[in-house]
């Protein structure tokens, strides 16, 4: 470690790594955006990055050094020998964009990373500061990429047709001149594959699940949080144990029982099962919140002659609206995303939920863009809810310690 703590080592090493990260990122991003051939060159990016790092360390990362580095990058890239190799088919515009982007991004960001690095021996703070800034930059790029790429692929695939997909799987650029033709997969899903019905079914089942869950969990949570009775501690602990039972273990006997009683393939069967999987979570989240409410307010209500149930209705519930909102959202999300039970218990296309409907699209006869369009249809409402009410959602997720 201590051998690394010299500017003439740290600078080039971080420079080389950073160049490789940036070159790869830009090459991938441009490939996905245009479908043209860009690829990072490992050897070239390491060499260029190392030289740049050394220059920064020597020149103490001054502004004119950054200009020099940026300018020095452009020339070899135009000659076709830079950190990113550009395929012959690439258009002039995308060539110019990627060269300029790499040069400016690299020159400016590396200057920040190596801000405290100079040629001689570094202090611990200077060294670690540089490493941390490098890791931070890498982290932002890495996480954003891994989170966005699957969703990007999902949306873009849904807007293409079969021929375009086979021709160049990398080409995700959209041909805007096609107009509404872009949304053909969606149109077909709604008109021919009944996705409107599935969506309504999912929504209906999810809302019912939320209501039933709350109806069961609110009294239970209140009892566990406020009332004294024997076995209270044991109860509040064992409610978490239900979390630990895998769904597939329950799904098998439920499948058998439903097959024999004819509840399989019915709305009510699903509506009976879903809430039970969410009641323990909801109860646990709510009791935590109820405990945090001041008991004095409720006692005042009791003194004024309200019954316990009236206290819950008139005092506790109005006070816990934020918690109810996050629990509802969270339960809605679980019910909306549920796949296993819907898959096992529903066979009749008229009663499919969205997730079950998407599963039925997974066959070799149905083109992939339909599958992806279905996925987008299922994802968008939950994302919209999530982004709109993110504050409640994150709170709900942390409070409930969440069923996975």
């Amino acid at each position, binding site marked *: 470690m201590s051998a690394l703590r010299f500017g003439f080592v740290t600078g080039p090493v971080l420079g080389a790594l950073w160049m490789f990260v940036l070159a790869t990122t830009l090459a991938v991003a441009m*490939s996905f955006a245009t479908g043209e051939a860009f*690829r990072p060159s490992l050897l070239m990016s390491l060499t260029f990055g190392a030289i740049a790092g050394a220059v920064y360390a020597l020149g103490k990362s001054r502004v004119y050094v950054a200009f020099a580095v940026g300018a020095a990058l452009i020339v070899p890239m135009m000659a076709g020998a830079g950190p990113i190799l550009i395929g012959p088919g690439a258009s002039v515009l995308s060539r110019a964009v990627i060269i300029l982007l790499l040069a400016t991004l690299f020159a400016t960001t590396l200057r920040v990373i190596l801000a405290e690095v100079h040629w001689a021996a570094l202090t*611990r703070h200077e060294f*670690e500061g540089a490493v941390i800034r490098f890791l931070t930059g890498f*982290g932002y790029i890495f*996480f*954003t990429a891994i*989170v966005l*790429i*699957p*969703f990007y692929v*999902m949306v873009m695939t849904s807007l293409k047709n079969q021929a375009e997909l086979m021709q*160049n*799987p*990398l080409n*995700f650029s959209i041909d805007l001149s096609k107009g509404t033709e872009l949304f053909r997969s969606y149109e077909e899903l709604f008109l021919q594959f009944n996705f409107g019905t599935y969506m309504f079914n999912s929504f209906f089942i999810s809302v019912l699940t939320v209501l039933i869950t709350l*109806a*069961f969990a609110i*009294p*239970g949570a209140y009892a*566990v949080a406020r*009332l*004294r*009775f024997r076995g209270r501690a044991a109860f509040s602990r064992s409610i*978490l*144990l*239900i979390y630990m039972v*895998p*769904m*597939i*273990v*329950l799904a*098998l*006997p*439920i499948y*058998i029982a439903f097959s*024999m009683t004819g509840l399989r393939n019915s709305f009510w069967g699903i509506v009976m*099962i879903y809430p*039970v999987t969410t*009641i323990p979570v909801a*109860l646990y989240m709510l009791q935590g919140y109820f405990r945090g409410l001041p008991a004095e307010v409720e006692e005042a209500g009791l003194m004024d002659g309200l019954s316990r149930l009236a206290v819950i209705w008139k005092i506790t519930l109005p006070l816990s609206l934020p918690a109810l909102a996050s629990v509802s959202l969270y339960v809605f*999300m679980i019910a909306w*995303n549920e796949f*296993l039970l819907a898959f096992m218990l529903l066979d009749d296309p008229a009663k499919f939920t*969205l997730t079950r409907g*998407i*599963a039925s699209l997974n066959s070799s006869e149905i083109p992939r863009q339909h*599958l992806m369009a*279905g*996925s987008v249809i299922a*994802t968008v409402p*939950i*994302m919209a809810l999530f982004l709109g009410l993110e504050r409640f*959602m*994150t709170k709900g*997720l*942390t409070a409930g*310690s*969440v069923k*996975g």
Partner: protein
Amino acid sequence: MLQMTPPTETGPLAKREARLAWGLLLPTITAVALVVVLPLLAIFWISFKPVELGDLRAPEVVLREDIRGDTDAVGDEANIRYRLRNSSRDQPITGVTFSDTIPEGLSVREVDPRCTLNERALRCDLGDWEPGTRETILIPVIIEQAYLDTGLRPQDSAASTTGKASNVLTNSTFTFENFARIFNGDEFFEVLWVTLFYTVFGTIGALLVGLFAALLLNKSFKGQGILRGLYLFPYVAPVIAVAFAWLILFDPFSGSANALLVQMGVTPEAINFFGERPLALIMVTIFEIWRYFPLSFLFILARMQSIDSDMYEAADMDGASPFQQFWYLSVPQLLGILSVLFLLRFIWTFNKFDDIFLLTGGNAGTRTLTVNVYEQAFAVSNIGAGAAVAVVIFGCLLTFSIFFLKYISQEEGL
């Protein structure tokens, strides 16, 4: 004078409170008992039963009814034909009977010896049936004017049948076959090893990646909220949507990931990410990490933000470097949440079914215990064996839960 001692018994008020509490909890307890406890007991029962998917439908008497011969004019002779069969090829039915109403205007010429006719009500007693029995009963009739007038055919009035069949699920045949079957051979150990690999690496990976993400966002800057929301996407999206997106991204024939890798010269030909033996297991583990790092990230971030910043200022004054601050201050503070998260995630990853089922269907060496339940019960159609695997899972979970309860009581707040 009365002696003053504290009350030793529970008073009426306390009793009333306890009664109310149980009353409020009753709906939840009933529902949970019905949908969780009962199925768990059922799993144990079924795991000792030789039951197949086809046995779920109890054997029954299937009856078809029609009229054969001329029925156009008065005086024509025809036959009412009843065709009956046992729907099961391996289960007997005892005490088979059926009854039907002969329509107006058909006069019965003679009655089968097994049947009795009372006015228009026909009743036949067919005795006990072997598996796969088929019977045909013919009732010769003469057409009268009323039959032509009403237009009512014999098949318009549904015949009712009775018969008793024993159901494998409720009778007293038990077997150890299921357990012998799943423990038999190397397959079980492969399943166990896959489960262990997936669970251990999936859990640790999600924790580490989540820790890294939390460190990145543990400072306030513009756009921090947006990034935090963005990093939760994989967890919030429906599993089926993201699983299929991954499948299409990594498709061996027309996937973008392969096209990218080939173009970059990393690999000469396309890789079958979810279809080759060691790679498929690694890919499903990576998917698990990708999908669940947001959860660890959220918890770790919440804990980080509650750490007192004074400590870091003091450490700064003492000249501790950033890495030292992380290692000697942050890590000990985070150890509690990390261990709880590890336990929870470990159990949930162990229980995970949907992800692997959607990605590989348990093929290419990715069959975990939970996928094996489905595989045995539905792909091989042996419900008993599936239940036996479920019992094994349950045994493992019981062991984990003991650990969990020991630690969860120490770590309040979760």
